[in-house]
């Protein structure tokens, strides 16, 4: 079974996110009112072969812990896992 798994990696709360600050500032400059804050992270989309959704999610979690996220500066969440036809 093949799964599309999306993991979302975000700068940790309390860690300065200069990219997010610059984006919020730029949005304000463009006239978008009410942007109190922006944070910028990354999404990694994986096509994963695994017997069941739980296995695919578990594999993605281990990949985040090992490589995809840096625990010092980033938090991650396995967002979605959907079966690919």
């Amino acid at each position, binding site marked *: 079974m093949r799964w599309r798994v999306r993991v979302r990696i975000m700068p940790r709360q309390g*860690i*300065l996110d*200069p*990219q997010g600050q*610059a984006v919020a500032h730029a949005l304000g400059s463009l006239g978008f009112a009410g942007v109190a804050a922006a944070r910028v992270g990354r999404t990694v989309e994986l096509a994963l072969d695994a017997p069941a959704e739980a296995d695919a999610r578990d594999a993605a979690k281990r990949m985040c812990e090992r*490589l*995809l996220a*840096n625990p*010092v*500066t980033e938090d991650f969440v396995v967002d979605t896992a959907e079966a690919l036809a």
Partner: protein
Amino acid sequence: MKVAVVRFPGSNCDADAWHAAKDAGHAVAFVWHRSTDLGGADVVVLPGGFAYGDYLRAGAIARFSPVMKAVEAHAKAGRLLLGICNGFQVLCEAGILPGALARNAGLSFVCRWVTLRVEATDTAFTAGYRKGQTLRAPVAHGEGRYVADEATLDRLEREGRVVFRYAGDNPNGALRDIAGITNEGRNVVGMMPHPERAAEALLGCTDGAALFALAGT
């Protein structure tokens, strides 16, 4: 001493590090990152650059290069290891040094001379300096803001493991102005500034040369 300079795909200060080590009188060899043999080196240098294009995070992929198993064993055995700029990022990603190098607070890539204060002289790399001495060296990085949790920072300070601090001008927003640190065994040093680019008169500054002289060995 035998010095090995590791080359990752994307390293670009490898020749400079080689040159600085050679000028200091060492026998220097390059080691390709696919190699698992450091050739009996006494000192390993992970040079500056953009290994693997800094993809994902600076140093995140390079730390899994085949050579890194040998580098970790080398460090564990108490032998000397120096990570400069990208090399420092690789050492943090590998967990050989604590903390991480995050994107510069000012967002821009910084490429300029900075002043450093030597905070610890009890490492082989800094034994040729005086405590409190200031040095000039260039920085050239987009991700050089040293970050770690408060407990780690306090521990580094308590154990005298902050080796270099930016004096006055902190170019990247590094916490507590940290520019370089050492490990518990004091045999591993990582730093963002480039001493190899300030190691001979022709470069306009010789302040970095003492780092390669390894006066403490």
